[in-house]
């Protein structure tokens, strides 16, 4: 009798929140492992073009980034509005690309030096003259593997 009577009294027991930190830590570790730190802050506009025939660019340690685009408004006063190349954290001319690639390549470990990819993150409004200059520089230092980095999407939307 008393067994049944007992259950009826009192309010609901509070849900224990003792395991909440564990759950949040689990989430935290998940995000720490699957994400990467944003490395360099962009000083150029970088609206990447769309494409749908794309390949993933995996293994971040094998990639060298080159950014191209118009300087953002805060730098436009100093550097003008023509598309510029950004290497690491500073603006550069096309002739500095070769040295930059060689420098970055020397930083990588020996076994990776031959498998590096150059990721060209170019604003879709930039013009091909600058890109041709970069490509010529890359050929001169024998960095032939190039990735035109894009956003997954309909390629025809670039045309407007």
């Amino acid at each position, binding site marked *: 009798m008393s067994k049944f009577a007992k259950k009826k009294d009192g309010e609901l027991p509070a849900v224990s929140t003792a395991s909440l930190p564990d759950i949040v830590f689990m989430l935290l570790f998940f995000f720490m492992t699957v994400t990467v730190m944003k490395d360099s802050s962009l000083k150029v506009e970088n609206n990447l073009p769309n494409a749908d025939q794309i390949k993933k660019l995996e293994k971040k340690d094998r990639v060298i980034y080159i950014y191209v685009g118009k300087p953002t408004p805060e730098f436009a006063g100093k550097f003008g509005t023509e598309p510029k190349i950004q290497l690491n954290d500073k603006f550069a001319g096309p002739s500095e690309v070769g040295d930059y690639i060689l420098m970055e390549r020397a930083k990588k470990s020996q076994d990776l030096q031959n498998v590096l990819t150059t990721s060209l993150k170019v604003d*879709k409004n930039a013009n091909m003259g600058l890109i041709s200059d970069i490509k010529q520089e890359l050929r001169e230092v024998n960095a032939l593997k190039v990735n035109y980095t894009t956003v997954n999407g309909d390629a025809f939307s670039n*045309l407007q």
Partner: protein
Amino acid sequence: MSSREEMPKVNAGSMADIAFLLLIFFLVTTSIETDVGLNRMLAKESKTPPLPINQRNILPILINDEDKLMVNGEIIPINELKEMAIAFLDNGGVAVNNANYCNYCQGKRDEFSSDNPQKAIISLMSSRETSYGVYVTVQNELVAAYTALRNREAQRLYGIDFTAMEEDYSSESTSFESKAILKQRIKQIQALYPLQLSEAERKQNQ
């Protein structure tokens, strides 16, 4: 005495708040997406002049300053480019009794177009004022043409898309043995339609 021996418990209620704070910090400062894009090999620097190539084996694509596209001497809208590239690559114009005859091509076999896919070269020339967005779209369409042809051959030979084979090859769950078979098949399909794309800047005097 007994009360002194008991250690006071540290309140762990704020632990969750601290962990949330850390979590939000990492969410803000990191990015999850991996970069995607079009992979391309640049041509090697060479001092020797290139060998002469028969004009019919080249599909010249020019993009001018106003982002207009000219293929084979005629101005076309960009959405017709893929069809034109496929027609050119899949032409197989060499006669049946020739050693270079392309027995899997399904094109028109026009003798004024490419001999076979191994010889067909697409030459992409852009001028300095061409916008990068248009250039990427053209590159994308050309890759799409190759992928369409490779998919067709992979379907015919193995009953599976070429893109699906590539996906299986790079997936972690595929076993070592099947990867070896896949690699050989992928190489075979790539040899049927090798990607031969020459990108050059248009000279001012041309």
